């Protein structure tokens, strides 16, 4: 039995310990905000925060996060008013929106680590998150806005 804490709640799993965290979150725990985009840590759609670090849930097993604290998009802020989320809405970032949970989690992790990232630091830190609709200019603007106060 593996125990993990997701968005402050204890959850347990007695199935395959190698099950990717992504599928545990989505299919077993019903937290579908975290998305599948590639399964190989190439696109960042599945980004969650594990103990203050951005992690790709698609290549992280449930066993890897045993006893750890996981934050998903659903748990980032109780009302959805994390500065990154607010900035995202102010800049009208999303088009289709599918990659945005991963983008937001990555941005939130970046700002925990570096509260005032530069233009180049934002572009570098966010480069692991693909947006096929092409919202990059707005993502960059939103991260900047979140870092300067929304």
């Amino acid at each position, binding site marked *: 039995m593996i125990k993990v804490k997701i968005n402050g709640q204890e959850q347990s799993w007695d*199935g*395959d310990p*190698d*099950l*990717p965290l*992504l*599928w*545990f979150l*989505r*299919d*077993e725990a*019903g*937290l*579908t*905000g*975290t*998305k*599948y*985009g*590639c*399964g*190989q840590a*190439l*696109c960042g*759609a599945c980004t969650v925060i594990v103990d203050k670090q951005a992690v790709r849930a698609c290549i992280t097993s449930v066993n890897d996060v045993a006893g750890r604290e996981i934050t*998903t*998009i*659903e748990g*980032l802020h109780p009302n*959805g008013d994390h500065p990154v*989320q607010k900035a*995202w*809405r102010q800049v*009208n970032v*999303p*088009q*289709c*929106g*599918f*990659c*945005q*949970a991963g983008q*937001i989690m990555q941005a939130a992790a970046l700002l925990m680590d570096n509260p005032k990232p530069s233009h180049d630091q934002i*572009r*570098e830190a*966010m*480069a*692991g*998150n*693909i*947006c*096929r*609709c*092409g*919202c*990059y*200019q*707005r*993502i*960059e603007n939103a991260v900047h806005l979140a870092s300067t106060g929304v």
Partner: protein
Amino acid sequence: MNFIDNPRKLRGFEKNIKVEKVSRRSILKGLGVTGGFVLAAPVMTRQALAYETGAGKMPHGVVVDPRVFVSVAPDGIVTIVGHRSEMGTGVRTSLPLIVAEEMEADWSRVKVQQAHGDEVKFGNQDTDGSRSTRHYLIPMRQIGASARTMLEQAAAKRWGVPATEVKAVNHEVVHSTSGRKLGFGELATDAAKESVPAIEGLKLKDPKDFRYLGKGQVSIVDLHDITTGKAHYGADVRLPGMKYAVIARPPVTGGKLVSFDPDAALKVPGVEKVMKVQGWPWPSKFQPLGGVAVIARNTGAAIKGRDALKLTWDDGANGKYDSVAYRKELEEASRKPGLVVRKEGDADTALKGADKVIVGEYYIPHLAHVSMEPPVAVADVKGDKAEIWAPVQSPGGTREDVAKTLGIPEGNVTVNVTLLGGGFGRKSKCDFALEAALLSKELGAPVKVQWTREDDIRNGFLHTVSAERIEAGLDKSGKVIAWRHRSVAPSIASTFAAGTVHQAPFEIGMGLADMPFEIANISCENPEAAAHTRIGWFRSVSNIPRAFAVQSMVGEIAQATGRDQKDMLLELIGSPRIVKPNVKDLWNYGEPQDSYPIDTARLRKVVELVAEKGEWGRQVPKGHGLGIAVHRSFVSYIATIIEVAVDDKGKLTVPRVDTAIDCGTYVNPERIASQIEGAAIMGLSLAKYGEISFKDGKVQQKNFDDFQVVRMDDSPVVTNVYIVPPGPDTPPSGVGEPGVPPFAPALINAIFAATGKRIRSLPIGKQLEA
């Protein structure tokens, strides 16, 4: 009491709709289906409207009926049905916004309800071809005006005053002389009893009174849900007892399963079952490819189980498809005469007599859509009834195809449309929903079929591969007097009909036969090309290779004659005029030529606007260069200027993009900007990295590591968008797709300006490395 409390409860309600005109189903859904007669309301009479669109000729036409699209609850909440699919263009917001505008509803008290797939009820739902705003601006205004009129009539009756004395203003109806007011909610019950006014008599708002249309102040309705993880995509559907499936499909198009060994897969924890999936012989339209499904308690287990399958395939006739050899075939075909699709003057003779002939041979490989949400669908089939939840661009077509595939009446199929995590044309094909339906029927349980990214890249409906050859003949003064363009590419029609070797009319009309230059001798030709994989619509379709070739050639002519690119471009476009190519039934994106002609004044204008705003001719640092391109597609006009920087090692970056678009009358300029910004990313992706190649019949790429797309660190630093203000009666035109085609040639022209290297084959890849 509402106009309709719940549209889904009221099937058959459509029989009460007043039918104004019988519209022939003249365009077949997809390509292979024969249509019957369907009933549809006209867009509007000619007298009342400045333009006509092709909306009425789409399958099931247009339905203009407020009872179908609008309901008002006693608490004042107005619910407006969005009947098109939301894949990122903002259409789920913009069409209901048009209704709200016209009915004087307060947007903060409007809820949007997604329509299920039912084209008899809602009219055509195919969300593709950049058509939604251009086909529905007027019908949605009419629906809003009808609802407003019914509310006004109800208020006038309540007060016993003439209807001319009342007016709906911001969610209430006001009596002008007494100042009395009634909220929409208070009028809901009475308004529902009013008869629906005739379309011809409707009074539309004066555009100067618009609160929302053309303003860009309204955010998309799903914005909050998207930022909090609550937005509901196809992949997010969960039903009690639902099983999770992934499918191993034939690696070669047209291949068949010979045998499989499920034993190892069945030992994977969480795997419950391994079963065959029915496939159809190629070409098979949108029918599934077949294969072997692994059914599990979660997707992770299903994927692991699939990895453990032992499979033997018969690759069939396409087992030798090889992109290197195929490219040679296409290029050789482009050097010989082909089917002439447009002829003006005598290009052969003019080319022979020309002072100088410039030849450009251009190549663009297959591309995959790679929407961030790979194809996925949930089906629950019980007896002769089926319910589908899926991110589909064609809910009506999906309903039709599910019914046919399962052999049940269409009325027994419900297609619930989720948000689409990107579409780009891939989700116009409902094969993934059909797979889910077949599996659910056999399992007797709800099932979700999830495509992995590898499936998406290897088993998709790819963008075509093409060789484009242009010969331009110049006289002594440098004027272009002859133009021969040969376009060789497997057609989308090959996915529907065996033996297809020519481009379909709609492909010929995308940048080949509709070429707008003022040249005396023109020959557009289409030599034969047979397909060896599934070809499908990809955002902006054949306009990608055609604009790449034509606009690169403009750069090449400028280069050969020492002219400025922009001046050369304007000279070739020539005088402001309506171009009428000598082509029988030239395909014009399904639109009448009267409303949507090829207008070179508008083409020139976007070039001039982008040149001014984008500071064409500005000094740029060493290693930088500017390039320009223009293209009309989806009846919109778009010009792009790109600044590139290429360093000593050949690393390409894009400091700035400027794009001007003339899309006629528009609804939400803020979303137009986002579409054009996104088109720049997609254009840069395909130019820099985009290539799907085949060897031994199999796709050689698998995921985002070998089919790369642009990431934030190599995206354009700044993208500026300029929208041409429309004239009073300019019909709306496409926005979702037209931003893509001019990007690659503008980039290539910029690279030439920066480096002196002319790239004729995409992707750029390592061509700039010394």
